[in-house]
């Protein structure tokens, strides 16, 4: 009775995950071990060739470049997001909600439109360059668009809300008495942050960072639009393999590697958070 009810209740959810997540991923994994057909299809001949190709220095550099861009994006998001989340967490409850909505507001508009907006801002004739020239700070426009700077700016802009939300949930859980106790025991505000606030919000930092990193490394729209297509990131590579080169097995292999890396990161983060929670559960 209980068992059958559980199946009824969890069934739709499990079916959803199986149909839209597990099965596609499994297909992807399976495809990555076959050969590419001459006209773009899949020849069902087992091979490791796709994976051997993926670790070729050419592609390894793309991997590395993507990780670098995603890593820088993550660090900048953390540097921008922590003070923001900290301030919101210290606000009275009513104002917190208003500010959190402000943080999330951009997410309600279309990602492409938001990315195009950055082209308008960053290009040679754009708002930023013209303002700087107008103020007499520079003579010629700065090369702000179609480079790593533009990609990182676009990604940071897009994903900093996720960082703020993750950090906010962690910082707001921290009892204010802990900071007061630290002050009472003679710690300066900086020392309190370093010894109490920062270590106790590490789970939030980890969650936010993994979030931003994973979203950034797989992104192909922003590098395409703001990077001007010159700088290929791993997301673009996969996109090209499926839609331009029509090499599904190779695209699948790269995608499988990226998914593997992401899952590893998420697992490490989850394990770390679990372990800390068990150790430090405030009874």
């Amino acid at each position, binding site marked *: 009775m209980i068992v059958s009810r559980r199946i009824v209740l969890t069934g739709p959810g499990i079916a959803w995950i199986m149909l839209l997540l597990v099965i596609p991923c499994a297909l992807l994994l399976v495809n990555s071990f076959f050969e590419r057909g001459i006209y773009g299809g899949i020849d069902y001949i087992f091979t490791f060739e796709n994976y051997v190709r993926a670790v070729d220095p050419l592609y390894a550099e793309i991997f590395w470049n993507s990780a670098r861009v995603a890593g820088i994006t993550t660090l900048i998001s953390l540097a921008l997001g922590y003070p923001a989340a900290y301030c919101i967490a210290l606000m009275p409850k009513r104002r917190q909600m208003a500010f959190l909505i402000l943080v999330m507001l951009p997410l309600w508009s279309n990602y492409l439109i938001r990315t195009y907006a950055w082209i308008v801002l960053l290009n040679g004739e754009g708002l930023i360059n013209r303002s700087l020239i107008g103020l007499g700070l520079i003579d010629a426009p700065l090369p702000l668009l179609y480079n790593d700077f533009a990609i990182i700016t676009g990604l940071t802009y897009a994903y900093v809300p996720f960082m703020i939300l993750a950090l906010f949930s962690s910082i707001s859980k921290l009892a204010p008495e802990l900071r007061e106790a630290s002050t*009472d025991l003679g*710690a300066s505000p900086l020392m309190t942050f370093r010894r109490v606030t920062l270590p106790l919000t590490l789970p939030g930092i980890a969650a936010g960072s993994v979030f931003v990193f994973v979203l950034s490394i797989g992104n192909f729209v922003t590098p395409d639009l703001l990077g001007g297509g010159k700088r290929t990131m791993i997301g673009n590579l996969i996109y090209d393999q499926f839609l331009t080169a029509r090499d599904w097995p190779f695209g699948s292999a790269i995608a499988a590697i990226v998914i593997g890396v992401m899952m590893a990161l998420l697992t490490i983060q989850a394990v770390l958070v679990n372990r800390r929670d068990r150790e430090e559960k405030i009874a």
Partner: protein
Amino acid sequence: MSALLEVVGVSKSFGEIAAVDNLSLSVGGNEFFALLGPSGCGKTTLLRMIAGFERPDQGRILLDGIDITGIKANKRPINLMFQSYALFPHMTVFANVAYGLEMEGLRGAELAKRVDAVLELVQLSALAKRKPAQLSGGQKQRVALARALVKRPKLLLLDEPLGALDKKLREQMQIELKRLQQETGIAFLVVTHDQEEALTMADRIALLRAGRIAQLGEPRALYERPNSRFVADFIGQMNFLEGMRVAEGFAVPGLGLFNAANLDDLPLGAAGALAVRPERIAVQDTEVAGAIAAEVEGLAYLGQDLILHLRLDGHDRPVVARVHAANPITMHVARGSRLWCGWSPANSLILSE
């Protein structure tokens, strides 16, 4: 005893509400002082101002004669034991206690020596390597105490220190806190809403009401000579018999004339209440001259004492009497029993406000 802490005319409002209202008091160098009062009386706000977490709107706070009103919390030689204990969950017991000394720049062997000594003082040496989550409530309380004591503050503030403990442990810790205060020679300022706790531990008590001191004095003085009905009612239990001061004494309608310890303080014609503690009412089961006849309306057996709810003949409000279990009448008294009770004028007070 020279004053260690002086609070001079301190006020603090939150919006429209005055939490602390022009309050002054002083605490001696080796004193166990209790701030007692119902919730919302301003005792915690006062404590937080002394600790440095709130700034008074008006008034000054002096420590050893030096004005510390503008000094930040982390620079004051005062430590606070938080009601929630506020132990750092990511640190061991040892690291929690060592934290305050590290902030003073202490390192290595000297640090370890001081921490070990204070852990021994609160009998926690065996648990030094544990994290707070692995401790019981009583153990956490000791860590919080050790963490504050290790700094050797001039004044230790304790915010409802025993509030989270169960009754048995609380009684044990009351004696323990008293011992620690005497052994360390540090002045303790305890905030509590529990009058029994304050009576047991404190050398002096300030009973607060609506941001002001209702009465300040030694426990015995507050219990024996309350200056108002509020104090009399808050500290222990009190019977009030409404009446009026007349030429011959204090007249209680239906019961007659009474004398009281402070009868002469009350002006003629003033209304007030005759206040008698339940345990000061003598109860007998045989009629005696001058005693008031009463009927038992209800009783509660407490082991060492028997609580009697009495209806005095001619009086409409019930009176509570507390009879020691050794009294022979406790053997056969029951609902509806007829008893005779009385009290000596020295054991009663007239309270006009």
